[in-house]
């Protein structure tokens, strides 16, 4: 557990917020709203977007051309969030997302990043030996599939659109979303029907 905040830190925070309000930069209500949005975000949001893209070609096109607009269409507030790009996995290309410089992660649609995503080991190895990293996660990709590592280095955030697995014919969106895991949304896993 984190230590409780020190009184002098809270006093400093109060003065900072008051100064920001006085300068018209941000209001306390906006801070509270952002905090609520951040806490509410979870991989279920990304999973719902993927499931809808699997069943709705128009939504799929929107998701691939403008991820932020596609998130907004699912009721996610993207105000103030970085632009969201979506990487389409195909039978010949698999995307793996990493941030080698820090821990950039599409929080607006996936929530807080897991600890391993921020680890030095993942950040160093995913970019250099992606197939070895994926194999350790249990994902063996055939040589016919290009592994494309996406190093999230700047102002975008990236989410993977995995391929819809065989054996899911006729499933509704909710059932489809249930097999889209957080790990599949950054490319360390792929969804499975069973």
């Amino acid at each position, binding site marked *: 557990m984190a230590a409780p905040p020190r009184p002098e830190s809270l006093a400093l925070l109060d003065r900072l917020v008051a100064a920001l309000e006085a300068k018209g930069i941000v209001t306390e209500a906006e801070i509270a709203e952002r905090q609520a949005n951040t806490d509410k975000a979870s991989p279920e949001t990304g999973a719902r977007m993927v499931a809808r893209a699997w069943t709705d070609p128009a939504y799929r096109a929107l998701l691939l051309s403008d991820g932020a607009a596609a998130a907004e269409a699912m009721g996610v507030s993207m105000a103030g969030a970085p*632009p969201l*790009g979506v990487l389409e996995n195909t039978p010949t290309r698999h995307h793996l997302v990493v941030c*080698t*410089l820090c821990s950039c992660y599409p929080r607006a649609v996936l929530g807080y990043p897991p600890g391993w995503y921020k680890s030095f080991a993942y950040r160093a190895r995913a*970019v*250099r*030996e*992606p*197939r070895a990293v994926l194999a350790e996660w249990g994902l063996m990709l055939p*040589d016919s599939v*290009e*592994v*494309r*590592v*996406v*190093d*999230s*280095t*700047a*102002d*975008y955030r990236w989410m993977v659109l995995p391929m819809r697995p065989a054996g899911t014919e006729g499933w509704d969106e909710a059932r489809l979303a249930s097999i889209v895991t957080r790990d599949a949304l950054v490319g360390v896993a792929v969804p499975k029907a069973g």
Partner: protein
Amino acid sequence: MSGAARFTPGARVRVRDDWPERRGPCHIRTPHYIRGRTGTVVRPLGAFANPEDLAFARPAPARTLYHVLFEQGPIWHEGRPGDTVMVEVFEHWLEPAEGGA
């Protein structure tokens, strides 16, 4: 402010072989492993305030950001041929690659 993007999709570009961190305090979003490497522009991603200035609270002009694709082999000298790495790189880190389109 940034004008039109200098490079178009498919352009061959070289990342400047520059190491500002050896000259003094700085904040750079260009990973070390692509400096001096040649890649292909996938597409411009838009213009964003230059993080190298933002980090020091300096006026930060908007710079065009690109998705640039590199082959993994020439970078790491290992791995499967055909595997790639795609990186966001700001325009001022890129120059036309010799003989490139």
